[in-house]
């Protein structure tokens, strides 16, 4: 009995430690694999070809700019939807709604977050795209706008739950102080509570961006996938092709080791770097605000 306990004491902490380190190992392995498969692109494909305005891989047109611009456009659009909606909903839940409304709203929003994205894509193809085409008199509803609206809907739950936590963490004394000074409810929210929760709200937005730029299925179904360089103002009303949709659509059939295969992995690296930048800036914001809090406390 005793020896068994000793054995457990020896084994279990090490097992837990291995679990903890495994995450680092996996990320490193994935990154290494991406680099190994994707970096040869820079040798095999001249830089000028990567900046080609056309993406047509079966005829050796490997311009990735249309794909990057497509992803960025859809993501910016999604954030324009998700930011006001998400932060507004978070403020309503945390500051305004009576207790019973909050009790209904929170699980409902979490349910929205759990919706499979392929279902939203279906909704987009069957309802949203036809509606947008008729309502805005567009040639087709399969546009960056449709993708942005749906991605916004996907990002809203992320934004709401994190921003709401941040608002909840603002000490009650802040609000009471503002009310005591005669501030209205709106003035308290806008001038006191939201600025106090700024870093958490920013994190919420950053994670929302990360969520939308990596989303694949929905955008593949509703954005039309036409690799057009999206630089004009009205590009939001035309079809675009995102990096994620390109990888998903083409990776299954590409010959392993071919130039096309390498370029797809290269796009994966670009995507990885973009999410990395978003994540690092999110943690930088948190880190800075933490240091500030430590300064105030000391």
């Amino acid at each position, binding site marked *: 009995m005793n020896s068994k306990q000793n054995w457990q004491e020896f084994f279990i902490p090490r097992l837990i430690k291995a679990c903890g380190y495994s995450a680092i190992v996996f990320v490193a392995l994935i990154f290494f694999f991406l680099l190994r498969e994707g970096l040869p692109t820079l040798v095999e494909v001249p830089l000028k070809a990567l900046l080609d305005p056309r993406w047509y891989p*079966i005829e050796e047109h490997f311009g990735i700019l249309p794909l990057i611009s497509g992803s960025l456009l859809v993501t910016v659009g999604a954030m324009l939807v998700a930011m006001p909606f998400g932060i507004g909903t978070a403020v309503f839940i945390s500051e305004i709604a009576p207790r019973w409304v909050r009790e209904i709203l929170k699980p409902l929003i979490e349910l929205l977050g759990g919706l499979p994205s392929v279902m939203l894509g279906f909704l987009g*193809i069957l309802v949203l795209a036809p509606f947008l085409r008729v309502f805005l008199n567009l040639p087709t509803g399969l546009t960056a706008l449709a993708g942005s609206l749906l991605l916004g809907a996907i990002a809203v739950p992320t934004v709401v739950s994190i921003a709401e936590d941040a608002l909840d963490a603002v000490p009650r004394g802040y609000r009471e102080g503002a009310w005591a000074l005669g501030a209205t409810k709106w003035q308290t929210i806008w001038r006191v509570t939201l600025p106090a929760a700024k870093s958490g709200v920013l994190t919420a937005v950053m994670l929302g961006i990360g969520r939308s730029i990596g989303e694949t299925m929905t955008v593949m179904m509703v954005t*039309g*996938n036409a690799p057009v360089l999206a630089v004009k103002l009205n590009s939001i009303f*035309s079809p675009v092709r995102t990096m994620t949709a390109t990888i998903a*659509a*083409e990776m299954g059939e590409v010959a392993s080791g071919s130039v096309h295969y390498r370029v797809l992995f290269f796009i994966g690296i670009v995507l990885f770097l973009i999410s990395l930048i978003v994540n690092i800036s999110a943690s930088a914001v948190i880190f800075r605000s933490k240091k500030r809090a430590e300064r105030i406390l000391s």
Partner: protein
Amino acid sequence: MKSVRLLLLALLAFSLTACDSTSNLGSEPQAFVYIENKGSDTMVNLALAWAEAYQNAHPEVRISVTGGGSGTGIAALLNGTVDIANASRKIKPEEVEQAQANGIEPVEFVVARDAIAIIVHPDNPVDRLTLQQISDIYSGKINNWSEVGGEDRPIVRLSRETNSGTHVYFLETVLRLGEKDNKTLFSMDTLLLPSSEGIINEVRQNPNAIGYDGLGYVPQDLKIIAVAKTESGRYVLPMISTVNDKTYPIARDLYVYTAGQPEGAIKDYLDWIHSSEAQEIVAELGFVPILVYNP
């Protein structure tokens, strides 16, 4: 990835039929005849359906079907590793040369046909186009339906993704009009949809759209465009008769190749493929059956 899935399917089909026959195996041990069949991904479902039906009727024959592409199948035939190669294109002259160098004389059989239908919204007044007009629409030279006798509406071009064999066939036969040195490309704003279903959905609800798809996949409620080879030519709708007499221009033959004139079990199998029973399976799967001469 796809070939793995197809292999699994083939194994499944194989094991299913293997199950039925274990019962007679006990009573009288039989010598099995094995036929290896490999090639075109377009045809793999068809080949599987054929193999399944044939094995049900002839339990002594085992047919294993794998995909991988027309080129893979023909290469395997030249190396002597398969008995029958499926191909959605004709064998190339250099492949014939290589075969002869290996002492193999490939023999070609047309086993089915595949027609690509051009589809539009049922309210679109345009019901006929020439090949040149379709090429100009998809390459971006024609951008409004009024230029081809329709309403004043922008044209929304729909296509399958670039990895689809149908996409490549459409590029070569329609956009480039079958000319080898023609380098026409799809207009950049062509919507590349990941599935047949995506194309059909968009055409169904969007009167601006034009799309293409295998004839077998087109539902009743869409309008199929009649196509002419030249402006003075006859406009023809895709159907079994027009595909078979070659008046419908966007159709391809589907082939199988054998090494030398087939004999024994392989000959029986190919004869059966040309029977009306096997050609009914062709029609069920949305391909165009070839003419069957029942003596």
